[in-house]
């Protein structure tokens, strides 16, 4: 089994206190449902967990209708310098992680 690919996060490096920032995440993955005739066997990500300073911001559960290379955008209001942690998990329990720090001046 191959390992999960490295995710890509687009997030500002800094923000003003109270500013709403946009966070974009992308991970390359076939999201193969296993339903296709003569297609590859099932290989799906099941979950994305986004935490800010250890607290859950957003948790996604993926089912068959989520596209290949899952891409998500969401918005967070920044109050203080924070570390974001992103974890994707597939059905075999493998994970991919990314981390980002946003400085609030």
């Amino acid at each position, binding site marked *: 089994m191959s390992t999960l690919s490295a995710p890509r996060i687009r997030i500002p490096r800094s923000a003003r206190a109270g500013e709403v920032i946009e966070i974009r995440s992308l991970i390359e993955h076939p999201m193969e449902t296993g*339903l*296709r005739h003569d297609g590859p066997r099932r290989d799906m990500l099941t979950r994305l967990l986004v935490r800010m300073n250890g607290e859950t911001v957003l948790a*996604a*559960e993926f089912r068959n*209708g*989520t596209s*290949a290379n899952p*891409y998500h955008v969401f*918005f967070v209001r920044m109050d203080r310098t924070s570390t974001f942690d992103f974890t994707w998990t597939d059905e075999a329990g493998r994970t991919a992680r990314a981390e980002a720090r946003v400085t609030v001046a």
Partner: protein
Amino acid sequence: MMTRRRSLLALALLPAAAAATTADDALAAAMREAVGDAAITDGGITLRAPTTAENGGQVPVTILAESPMTAADHVTAIHVFATANPTPGVASFRLTPLLARAEVQTRIRLAEAQRIIVLAQMNDGRVRRATAEIRVTTGGCLT
């Protein structure tokens, strides 16, 4: 003769009707699994999706539920369903008040032209609904 024609007609209609029932059952089951038996009311959600998606494999969808996203009043989950896919489930998003607004942008796949349904659950148990009809030029290779 009439009887025979009728029975042929019935036979011709049967598979389609059976398939529709199975899809409806799967959708109802998926929605019940997501929000239980809570009453669902329309509105309170802005659902942005293309009217025609060229590539059913990558259809951009934006869901924005009306909510102040405070500890006292926030959206706890957004569920997305594709009514005519082989399986209706697309994704469930668990939201927290750390989000500035109850908005998630994602990309979904649609096997054919269909209606998508979005449900937003509030922390007080209310459930809102929005739908969108999307035409699909090239289906999203689900089967």
